[in-house]
């Protein structure tokens, strides 16, 4: 047996460990007698899918077992166990502690579960313990702190939680401590600062909190420090600058604040510095330019300000410079790269700062592969000698203010894969040389001012996957050979001036998922080859002049989710569009589709928007639409649909827009509409609906627009409409409604448009309508049987722009309060029984506004001798005289006013400007309270003043005079 052949020392060690285990009892329940026995216990605890442990048997020498290393020259003294990456699962058996002579355990990269056995703490000879990349749970046992000889401890990429045991600070020989990618919390233990030999410390991707403890300064041998992706706070300690051997420092994605310590510039061995994603402030320390070995510098996503004070000419080894997402301003420094050949800078990310100026300085960085300067304020042109950067793979200049044309030299960048220039002010055409970019995958030119035709050569860029030219001025046809782009997944040409047909070859772009050709001037029919685009999910062709029936092959497109063909001239049946049962949007508004609405539409149970308005659809609304319970928008307006509104639609409880207007629907307005609580717009106008308005509509409390006009509705307007307090527009025109206008409408105080004309409404206009203070577009009560006087309260509708009360039976005089309708620019009171004089303030409206009444006075013929208005002529004379007097007074006042101003200018230093002071002086005319309502300041034109003043009553004139004379008196006193 191996144990009999073992040397003395391990035996003693074994005895010692037995003793130790007795002290640790009862955790050492199964103390193995021998190393092979211990190993077999380890084996029995593991599931071994690859059978790598199959040779582990007492028949063979333990030193020949797979994964076992023995002490050279000795027999049976096991020093190493390496079972890394064999897909082992199960728990690490505590029996492993029986491997008393073991120096190295590597069980990494398996699927081990359960806790790390604390018994490992007895393996005094252990120098290397690698358990990383498993699924171990529980906490890190503090017993590991007993391993005085441990040099390498790597437990990362497990599901360990809890705190980092401070006892690890006792492992004084530790050189590598890897605890990354776990769920460790708490703070970084200060005790780790005792690890003078520690070279690598990886604590990244945990949930550690607190700061970096100052005791960590004791880890004087550190070469690699990563605490990235935690929740660490506080300043970056300046002692980091004393780690003279440090090569890699990764503090990314924490919550560090304050400035970057200049001492970092002392880390002369540093090759990797990553401080991204904290809240660092201040400028980039100039000392960083001393890091001659630095290859990667990432300060992105902080609040760093000031200039880009980085010189790749000094940082001779810099390959990555990432400063995106800060508050940097100014220009790219001229000396960023001193000379093309010497610079190693490959990747430059400056996106999302406030940088300005041109990008010419980058042309010196001859090794550049990626440039991202997007989301800044850069100006100028894309330099024509951009081909001095032949290694360029990614060029992102989007969201800046670049101008000029895309230079033809872009065609020399033969490695280019991503060219993103969108949202700039680029003009000119796409150079045909672009066709030489055989590796180009993404070409984003959208939201520029580019023009010309799309060059045929573009179809040589056969690697293209995404093309987006949205929002330019490209004209001419879509290249006929577009089908060469076999890898194209996205083609977005929306909002250009493209014309001609959709090329037949497009059907060869078999990978196409999204096709947007909307907002162009495309003509012709859809090619039959469209049916080959099996991957197509989103297709938007709206606002073109495409025509004809749809090819039947479209029915083969089973992956369609969004179809928007609105505003074209498509005709014929909808059926080819209904092959997919995954449609979420089917928008075909304003075409010439005919036939019935196929019930198959309802196969797409996830339909959210169904917009078929403005076609020539006939037949009934299919009851199956009631299966579309997620439907939000149903627009079938302006067709030739007939029959009732199907009751099944009451299942569409998420409807926000229901537009069935402009059809020939019959039957009643269904009461169940009241159960559609999400409804914001309900338009049933221009149909042949009969019956009354259901009071239940008052339950649609979110309704903003309600239009039932042009039907045959009868009965009265239910007062429940008054509950619709969100309503903006109410249109009940052209029905046969009777009864009175319910005063409850006053509660609809957000109405800006109210139309009740051409009904048979009777009774008075409720004075309560005067409370609809937001009425703006129109109040139309015309062509009814309304009687009584025009309520004076309508004068409160100060925002109203159009008022039509014509063709009713209104009597009495026009209330002078209507003069307060200062916003009014159209007024129709014609064909009523009104009498008396037109209030002078309304005389600017045409005679047509008043005809068909017993009215007189401008703009109608003057009132007769018996007219009460005529008796005012005496007053008029008085007013004119008074006016002249007032003009004189005003001139005097103006002079006095001026003198006063000059005077008060001199006194400005000492005179307070408060209200009280102003009232005391009176003559300033500046105090708001002194300006009476409705009085006009006419100093600019005495003529217009006297003309308009006639519109006011005598007493108002008097009060103006009174005010002015008071003012004059006050000025005089001053």
């Amino acid at each position, binding site marked *: 047996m191996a144990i009999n052949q073992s040397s003395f020392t391990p035996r003693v060690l074994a005895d010692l460990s037995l003793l130790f285990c007795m002290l640790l009892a009862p955790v050492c329940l199964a103390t193995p007698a021998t190393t092979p026995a211990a190993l077999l216990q380890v084996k029995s605890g593991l599931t071994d899918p690859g059978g790598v442990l199959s040779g582990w048997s007492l028949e063979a020498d333990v030193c020949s077992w797979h994964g076992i290393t023995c002490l050279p020259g000795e027999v049976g003294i096991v020093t190493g166990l390496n079972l890394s990456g064999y897909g082992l699962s199960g728990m690490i058996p505590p029996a492993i502690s029986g491997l008393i002579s073991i120096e190295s355990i590597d069980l990494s990269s398996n699927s081990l579960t359960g806790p790390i056995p604390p018994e490992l703490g007895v393996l005094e000879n252990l120098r290397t313990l690698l358990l990383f990349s498993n699924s171990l749970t529980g906490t890190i046992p503090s017993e590991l702190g007993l391993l005085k000889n441990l040099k390498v401890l790597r437990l990362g990429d497990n599901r360990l939680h809890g705190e980092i045991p401070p006892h690890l600070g006792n492992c004084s020989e530790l050189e590598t401590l890897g605890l990354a990618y776990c769920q460790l919390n708490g703070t970084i233990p200060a005790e780790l600062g005792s690890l003078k030999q520690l070279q690598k410390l990886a604590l990244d991707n945990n949930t550690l909190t607190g700061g970096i403890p100052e005791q960590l300064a004791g880890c004087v041998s550190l070469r*690699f420090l990563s605490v990235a992706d935690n929740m660490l706070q506080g300043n970056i300690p300046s002692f980091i600058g004393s780690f003279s051997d440090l090569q890699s420092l990764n503090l990314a994605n924490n919550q560090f604040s304050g400035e970057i310590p200049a001492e970092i510039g002392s880390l002369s061995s540093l090759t990797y510095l990553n401080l991204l994603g904290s809240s660092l402030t201040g400028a980039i320390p100039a000392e960083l330019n001393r890091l001659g070995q630095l290859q990667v510098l990432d300060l992105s996503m902080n609040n760093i300000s000031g200039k880009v004070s980085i010189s790749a000419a000094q940082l001779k080894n810099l390959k990555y410079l*990432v400063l995106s997402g800060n508050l940097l301003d100014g220009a790219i420094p001229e000396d960023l790269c001193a000379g093309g050949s010497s610079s190693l800078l490959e990747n430059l990310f400056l996106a999302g700062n406030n940088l300005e100026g041109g990008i010419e300085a980058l042309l010196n960085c001859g090794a550049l592969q990626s440039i991202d300067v997007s989301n800044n304020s850069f100006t100028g042109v894309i330099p024509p000698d951009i081909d001095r950067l032949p290694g360029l793979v990614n060029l992102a200049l*989007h969201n800046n203010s670049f101008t000029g044309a895309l230079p033809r030299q872009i065609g020399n960048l033969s490695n280019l894969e*991503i060219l993103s220039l969108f949202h700039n002010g680029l003009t000119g055409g796409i150079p045909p040389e672009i066709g030489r970019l055989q590796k180009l995958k993404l070409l984003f030119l959208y939201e520029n001012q580019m023009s010309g035709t799309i060059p045929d050569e573009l179809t040589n860029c056969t690697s293209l996957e995404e093309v987006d030219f949205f929002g330019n001025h490209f004209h001419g046809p879509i290249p006929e050979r577009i089908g060469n782009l076999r890898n194209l997944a996205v083609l977005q040409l929306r909002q250009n001036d493209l014309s001609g047909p959709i090329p037949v070859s497009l059907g060869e772009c078999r990978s196409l998922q999204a096709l947007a050709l909307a907002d162009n001037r495309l003509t012709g029919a859809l090619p039959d080859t469209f049916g080959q685009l099996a991957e197509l999910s989103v297709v938007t062709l709206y606002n073109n002049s495409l025509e004809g029936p749809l090819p039947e092959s479209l029915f083969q497109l089973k992956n369609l989710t969004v179809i928007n063909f609105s505003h074209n001239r498509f005709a014929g049946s909808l059926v080819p569009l209904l092959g997919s049962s995954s449609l979420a949007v089917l928008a075909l508004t304003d075409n010439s589709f005919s036939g019935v609405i196929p019930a198959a539409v309802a196969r797409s149970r996830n339909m959210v928007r169904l917009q078929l308005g403005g076609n020539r659809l006939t037949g009934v609304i299919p009851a199956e639409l009631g299966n579309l319970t997620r439907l939000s928008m149903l627009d079938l307006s302006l067709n030739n649909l007939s029959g009732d509104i199907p009751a099944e639609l009451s299942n569409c409880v998420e409807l926000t827009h229901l537009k069935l207007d402009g059809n020939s629907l019959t039957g009643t307005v269904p009461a169940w509409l009241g159960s559609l609580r999400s409804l914001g717009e309900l338009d049933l106008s221009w149909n042949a609906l009969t019956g009354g308005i259901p009071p239940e509509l008052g339950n649609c409390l979110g309704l903003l627009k309600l239009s039932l006009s042009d039907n045959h509705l009868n009965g009265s307007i239910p007062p429940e409409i008054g509950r619709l307090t969100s309503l*903006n527009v109410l249109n009940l025109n052209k029905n046969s409604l009777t009864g009175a206008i319910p005063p409850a409408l006053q509660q609809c105080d957000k109405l800006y448009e109210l139309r009740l004309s051409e009904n048979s409404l009777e009774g008075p206009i409720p004075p309560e309508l005067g409370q609809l203070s937001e009425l*703006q577009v129109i109040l139309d009560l015309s062509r009814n049987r309304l009687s009584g006087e025009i309520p004076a309260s309508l004068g409160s509708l100060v925002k109203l722009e159009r008022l039509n009360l014509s063709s009713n039976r209104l009597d009495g005089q026009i209330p002078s309060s209507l003069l307060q309708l200062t916003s009014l620019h159209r007024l129709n009171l014609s064909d009523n029984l009104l009498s008396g004089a037109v209030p002078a303030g309304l005389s600017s409206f045409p005679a047509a506004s008043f005809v068909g009444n017993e009215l007189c006075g401008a703009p109608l013929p003057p009132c007769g001798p018996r007219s009460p208005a005529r008796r005012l002529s005496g007053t008029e004379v008085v007013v004119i005289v008074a006016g002249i007097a007032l003009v004189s007074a005003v001139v005097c006042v103006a002079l006095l006013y001026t003198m006063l101003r000059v005077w008060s200018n001199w006194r400005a230093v000492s005179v307070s400007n408060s209200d009280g002071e102003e009232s005391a002086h009176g003559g*300033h005319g500046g105090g708001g309270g002194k300006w009476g*309502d409705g009085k006009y300041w006419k*100093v600019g034109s005495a003529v217009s003043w006297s003309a308009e003043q006639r519109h006011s009553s005598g007493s108002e004139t008097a009060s103006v005079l009174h005010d002015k004379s008071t003012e004059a008196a006050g000025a005089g006193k001053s």
Partner: protein
Amino acid sequence: MAARVLAALLATALALALAAGPAPARASNDEGDALYALRQRLSDPNGVLQSWDPTLVNPCTWFHVTCDQASRVVRLDLGNSNVSGSIGPELGRLVNLKYLELYRNNLDGEIPKELGNLKNLISLDLYANKLTGGIPKSLSKLDSLRFMRLNNNKLTGSIPREFAKLSNLKVIDLSNNDLCGTIPVDGPFSTFPLRSFENNSRLNGPELQGLVPYDFGC
């Protein structure tokens, strides 16, 4: 470890490239974008902006937004909607807008000068908010404007004299602010009642051309 570093580095570079990278096939239009930018600025406790879905091809089916036949936004009705926040320059991109109704809310910040780009605007109703700062001169470019109601805010500075050029202006209400200087007298201002300017304690009455500085007291 080295693999990890490399992986982290690559992940960083990729994440940056993607984060900064464009969203392909943008299906929104500029007016929708502008309105959505407004939505993002505003706090909306009543959820009146809930229907503002930026993935729709245009904002014409959004509630409180009205389009004309050509799908251009002509009305924005957010009066009395309990929204707060600032207005922002994006609204200046709604170049077809005729009615901008943002009255009776808790809007603060300044009136963006970009509103001067709304050449078709008929009605500018920002009254009863908490707007501060000056009235932008650029509003004098609103040739179609008939109604300007900025009353009951906290606006400061003088009334831009250029407003006298607004020949279509029929109603102006600047009352209950903190304006200063004097009131123009030319153009449409010859007909405005003084109550349109009342309760501006530092406003010094109508301009006396050439006699008193226009900005007197500012």
